[in-house]
């Protein structure tokens, strides 16, 4: 069974499919992170506290990291 599994995992088509699946997940995750920025913006306007700006900065950083990861995944996979 191990030899069979090894053969399947060495198959270029399977690996390309895996790469595509990861990229789609990351792109959806990127869209989700952009929605979080919008939501944090709305939340920050609803309740204005000293940490509202920090929370917004984290949301932007989070989105930036994901966009970076999409580019990285595109490059190395």
């Amino acid at each position, binding site marked *: *069974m*191990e030899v069979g*599994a*090894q053969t399947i*995992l060495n198959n270029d088509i399977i*690996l390309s499919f*895996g790469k595509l699946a*990861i990229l789609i*997940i*990351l792109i959806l*995750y990127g869209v*989700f*992170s952009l*929605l*979080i920025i919008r*939501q*944090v913006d*709305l*939340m920050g*306007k*609803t*309740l*204005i*506290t*000293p940490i509202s700006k920090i*929370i917004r900065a*984290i*949301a932007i950083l*989070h989105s930036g*990291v*994901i966009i970076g*990861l999409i580019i990285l*995944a595109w490059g*190395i*996979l």
Partner: protein
Amino acid sequence: MFPTYVEHPRNVKFEGQDPDEKIILLLRAHPITNLPWIFFVIVLFFTPFFIPSILIMAGLRLSMFPQTFQIIFLIIDYLLILSILYEGFLYWYFNFTLITNKKVIDVDFSNILYKSVELAPLPKIEEADSTTSGIIGSLFNFGDISIQTAGAKVAIEMKDISRSAIVADIILDLAGKPHDHSKEEHI
């Protein structure tokens, strides 16, 4: 650092605040209510450590997968953890109730695309009932509060509020109504 029951909070404002409006109480759900998603984060954090064993049980080995795929999977897992942590904190922090000298405001963000703001002017409040239920609620002293305004409809429902009985009492005091302690429920 992030209290759930704050009297006269400083440096806090809200959307639509009148110039002469002062915040008397800022309330959030008790931190213990965050335990389910924190538990989920802990499980996700340790998941990569168990993946080799799971693969062996399935007749596979980790080395069969390209190293780049392994790295990306690991990064996605920890990003997911980061997201759940961040979202969990956001929904806890921004689901709040404010009691001002004019009204009670309850804000709910139940998901990323939903925002609900419920308002009840203090003079129109007829009743404020508190309910403490369950072992955890009794142990950590938190419960639900329902506020009724003129009319049969429940105007505001607040969930898992710390010191719920005291809060209901404060609301009725501000509304100028006597508090009927027989309406406090302990289930």
